[in-house]
C-alpha cells in the first residue's frame, strides 16, 4: 500500500497537467487537493499499521519490481516505511495538503492555474519518492525530481527576468551538491556492490572501519549534497533568491519539501556518519555557523519573505547541528516542528502580500493587525514558535538540539546556538512589529486594496497555527518523548542519547536559551515599537557592521566574481577559440576543401564536344591496348 503514497500525487499531477487546460478551476483544485489528501490518508493508514507492530519490527517494505538489473548489480523500485520515513511522509503530505488548499485562494487569479497545481502535485510526489525510497538511487530520483520542480516553480512567473534567473540559480547551485552525491553513489557501488540502504548500513561497519578516511570522505560527499539541497554554507545562496516564486511555493520548498531533503538524507545515512566522527564534527559546525550567519543577515533585511528565507537557512543550520552532535531524533524533531511554523510564517506572509496587492517591503507596512486579525494572530504564533518561546513547538525541538550539543561537549556550539536564538527572537519580532504593529506606513494604493484573505487561505493558517503551538508536546520530556521513542529504532544509538530525565543543568541551559530569545524579542520591541528612530541611529553608529549585514556579507558578489564571471569568461574564450577556431574550422575546412576539389574538377567539363570525343578515344585506345597486351601475355 505504501507505494500509493507517491503514486497518487503523481497521477494527480499528470491528470491536472495534461487535461487541466480544458477543466474548470474548481475541478483542477479539487483533483490536486484530492490527490494530496488521499496521499495523506494513505500515509496515516500506513502509520497506524506501523504503530500496530512491535517497536523493534516497525518496518514496512514494498517493491514495485526491478528498475535496473546489470550483472551482479541491481536496483529495485523499492519503498521503505519505517518511523523516519513515516514522520517525513506525514509532514510532507500534511503540510503539503494545507499549502495546496491555501493555493486555491492565493493563485485564484493566475492564468496558469492548472500548471501551478500540476507542478505542486509533482513536487509532492517527488519528495515522497525521496523519503520513501529504500535505496540511494531511488532517493536520488526523488532528489533530482524536487530539484527540477523547485526550478519550475521558482521560475513559475518566467516572464519576469528575476524569477527566471532565480530558478536557474537554484538549479545550478543544487547541481554542485548533486555531483557529490553521484560520486558518493558510484563509490558505494564499488564498495558494497549495491545501493540498498539495509545492505549498506549493515555492511558498513565491516567494510569501513570506524574513523577511517574512506568513511569520512564518503559521508562528507553525501553531506555536500545535503549542503546544496538544504541551503547551508557555502551553497545557501539559491534559497533567498527562490523568493521570486509564488508564496505557496516558498512555503512548500521551505517547510515540507526540498530543503528538508538534505536533513533527511543525512539522518537516513546516520549509520555511515556514525563511522566518521570527523564528518559529524564538520556537519555540526557547518550547521552551527550557518545558523548564526543566516540569522545575522536576517536582522537587517527589509523584504518580508527574505527574512523568513534566511530564518529557514538558520533553522536548517540548527537541524544539522543536531545531527552533527549525534542527536538524530532531535534534528528530525526540529525538522517536523519547523515544517509547521515555517509553513505558517510563509503562508501568513503570503496573506499579507495578497492583502497589500503584492507589497513585500516592510518599510511600507505597519499596523496591519487592525485589518488582518486572523493573519496577524497566526503570524504571532509562528513567530513565537520560530523564536523558541515556551510552550510553542520551536522551543522543545530547538532547545533539545542545544542541550544535545552541550551534553556532547560542544560548549562553543552551544554558545553559537544560543546567540542564534537571540538573533532569531530579534529578527522574528522586528518583522512582526514592523508589519503588524505601530503606525501604518502603507501606500494609499495598497491601503485601498487591504482586505482579509478568503477562507481557503485562513483555514490552513489556523490549522498550522494550532500545529505550531502543539506539535512540540510530542517531544516532552526531552530525548525520551513519544516522538523519540517512535523514531528511536531508525537511528544508531550514539553515546550520549540516554533518555535521561531533564537534569537541573539541562533546565538551566534551556532557561538560558529562553532568556536569550526573550532578550532578542525585547530588543526588537524597544527598537521598532517604542522608539522607531533608534534602528537608524544604531545603523549610523555601526556603519560598517550595518553595511556588511545589509549586503549579506557580499557573498553573492564574491561568488559572482570568483565563479560566475570566470566561468562566463572561460566559456566565452572557449567559444571564441576552441569552438569558432577548431570545431567550426574543421567543419568549414572540410567544406571548403570539397569546394576547391570541385572547382578543380569542373575544369574537366569544358563543354567542348571534340574534347569529350578525344577523351573517349584516348580511353578506348588505352583499354584496347591493355586488352591486347594482356591477351598477348596470357596466351603467350
Amino acid at each position: 500500500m505504501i507505494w500509493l503514497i507517491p503514486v497518487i500525487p503523481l497521477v494527480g499531477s499528470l491528470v491536472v497537467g495534461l487535461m487541466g487546460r480544458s477543466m474548470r478551476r474548481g475541478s483542477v483544485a479539487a483533483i490536486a487537493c484530492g490527490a494530496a489528501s488521499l496521499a495523506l490518508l494513505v500515509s496515516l493508514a500506513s502509520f497506524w499499521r506501523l504503530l500496530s507492530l512491535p517497536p523493534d519490527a516497525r518496518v514496512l517494505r514494498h517493491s514495485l519490481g526491478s528498475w535496473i538489473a546489470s550483472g551482479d548489480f541491481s536496483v529495485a523500485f523499492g519503498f521503505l516505511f519505517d518511523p523516519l520515513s513515516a514522520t517525513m511522509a506525514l509532514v510532507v503530505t500534511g503540510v503539503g495538503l494545507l499549502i495546496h488548499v491555501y493555493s486555491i485562494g492565493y493563485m485564484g487569479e493566475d492564468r496558469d492555474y492548472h500548471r501551478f497545481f500540476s507542478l505542486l502535485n509533482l513536487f509532492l510526489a517527488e519528495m515522497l519518492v525521496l523519503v520513501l525510497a529504500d535505496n540511494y538511487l531511488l532517493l536520488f530520483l526523488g532528489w533530482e525530481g524536487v530539484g527540477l520542480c523547485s526550478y519550475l516553480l521558482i521560475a513559475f512567473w518566467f516572464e519576469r527576468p528575476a524569477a527566471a534567473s532565480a530558478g536557474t540559480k537554484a538549479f545550478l547551485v543544487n547541481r554542485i551538491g548533486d555531483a557529490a552525491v553521484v560520486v558518493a553513489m558510484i563509490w558505494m557501488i564499488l564498495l558494497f556492490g549495491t545501493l540498498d540502504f539495509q545492505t549498506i548500513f549493515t555492511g558498513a561497519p565491516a567494510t569501513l572501519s570506524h574513523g577511517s578516511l574512506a568513511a569520512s570522505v564518503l559521508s562528507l560527499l553525501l553531506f555536500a549534497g545535503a549542503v546544496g539541497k538544504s541551503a547551508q554554507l557555502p551553497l545557501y545562496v539559491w534559497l533567498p533568491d527562490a523568493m521570486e516564486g509564488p508564496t505557496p511555493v516558498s512555503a512548500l520548498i521551505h517547510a515540507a519539501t526540498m530543503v528538508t531533503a538534505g536533513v533527511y538524507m543525512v539522518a537516513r545515512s546516520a549509520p555511515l556518519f556514525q563511522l566518521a566522527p570527523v564528518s559529524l564534527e564538520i556537519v555540526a559546525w557547518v550547521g552551527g555557523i550557518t545558523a548564526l550567519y543566516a540569522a545575522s543577515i536576517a536582522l537587517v533585511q527589509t523584504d518580508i519573505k527574505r527574512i523568513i528565507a534566511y530564518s529557514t537557512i538558520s533553522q536548517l543550520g540548527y537541524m544539522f547541528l543536531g545531527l552533527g552532535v549525534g542527536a538524530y531524533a532531535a534534528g528530525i524533531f526540529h525538522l517536523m516542528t519547523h515544517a509547521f511554523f515555517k509553513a505558517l510564517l510563509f503562508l501568513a506572509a503570503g496573506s499579507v502580500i495578497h492583502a497589500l496587492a503584492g507589497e513585500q517591503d516592510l518599510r511600507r507596512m505597519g499596523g496591519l493587525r487592525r485589518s488582518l486579525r486572523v493573519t496577524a494572530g497566526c503570524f504571532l504564533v509562528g513567530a513565537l514558535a520560530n523564536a523558541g518561546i515556551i510552550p510553542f513547538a520551536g522551543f522543545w525541538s530547538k532547545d533539545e538540539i542545544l542541550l544535545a550539543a552541550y551534553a556532547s561537549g560542544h560548549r562553543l556550539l552551544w554558545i553559537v546556538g544560543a546567540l542564534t536564538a537571540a538573533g532569531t527572537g530579534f529578527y522574528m519580532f522586528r518583522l512582526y512589529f514592523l508589519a503588524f504593529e505601530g503606525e501604518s506606513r502603507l501606500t494609499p494604493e495598497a491601503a485601498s486594496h487591504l482586505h482579509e484573505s478568503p477562507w481557503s487561505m485562513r483555514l490552513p493558517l489556523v490549522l498550522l497555527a494550532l500545529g505550531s503551538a502543539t506539535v512540540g508536546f510530542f517531544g516532552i520530556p526531552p530525548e525520551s518523548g513519544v516522538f523519540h521513542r517512535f523514531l528511536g529504532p531508525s537511528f544508531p544509538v550514539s553515546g550520549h542519547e540516554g533518555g535521561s530525565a531533564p537534569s537541573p543543568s539541562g533546565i538551566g541551559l534551556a532557561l538560558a536559551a529562553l532568556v536569550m530569545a526573550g532578550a532578542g524579542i525585547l530588543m526588537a520591541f524597544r527598537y521598532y515599537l517604542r522608539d522607531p528612530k533608534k534602528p537608524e541611529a544604531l545603523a549610523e553608529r555601526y556603519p560598517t557592521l550595518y553595511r556588511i549585514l545589509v549586503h549579506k556579507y557580499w557573498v553573492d558578489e564574491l561568488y559572482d566574481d570568483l565563479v560566475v564571471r570566470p566561468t562566463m569568461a572561460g566559456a566565452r574564450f572557449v567559444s571564441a577559440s576552441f569552438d569558432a577556431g577548431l570545431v567550426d574550422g574543421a567543419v568549414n575546412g572540410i567544406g571548403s576543401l570539397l569546394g576547391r576539389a570541385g572547382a578543380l574538377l569542373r575544369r574537366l567539363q569544358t563543354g567542348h564536344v571534340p574534347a569529350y570525343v578525344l577523351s573517349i578515344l584516348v580511353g578506348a585506345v588505352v583499354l584496347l591496348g591493355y586488352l591486347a597486351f594482356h591477351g598477348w601475355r596470357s596466351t603467350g
Partner: protein
Amino acid sequence: MRGAGCGVRGAMTGTVPLSAYLILSAALFAIGVIGVVIRRNALIIFMAIELMLNAVNLTFVAFSKFLGSMDGQIIVFFVMAVAAAEVALGLAIIIALYRNKESVNVDDINLLKG
C-alpha cells in the same frame, strides 16, 4: 545458315583476302575518328560519324562473307536503320542549334561548360 555458303575457302580463293577489307575498314574508321576530333563544323562531324558507322558495317559484311554466316549482314541492316534515324534526329538538332546560335561551329557550343 552455314549450309547456304559454298565453303569458306572457296569464297575467298582468287578474290580479295579478308585482311584487305579489314585494313580498308580500319582506315575508314580512323579517318572518321580524325574527322570527329579535328573538324569544327557540326555537319562535317556528323558525316565523319556516318563514315565510322559504315566502316564498321564493312567489317561486319566482310566477316559475314568470310564465315559464311548471315548474322553480320543482319546486324548491318540494323545499323543502317539506326543510322537513318540518327541522321533524322541529328540534323534536326543541328538545325535547331543553328536557329538559336546562328552557327554550327562546335567551339561556339559550350553550354555544358562546368
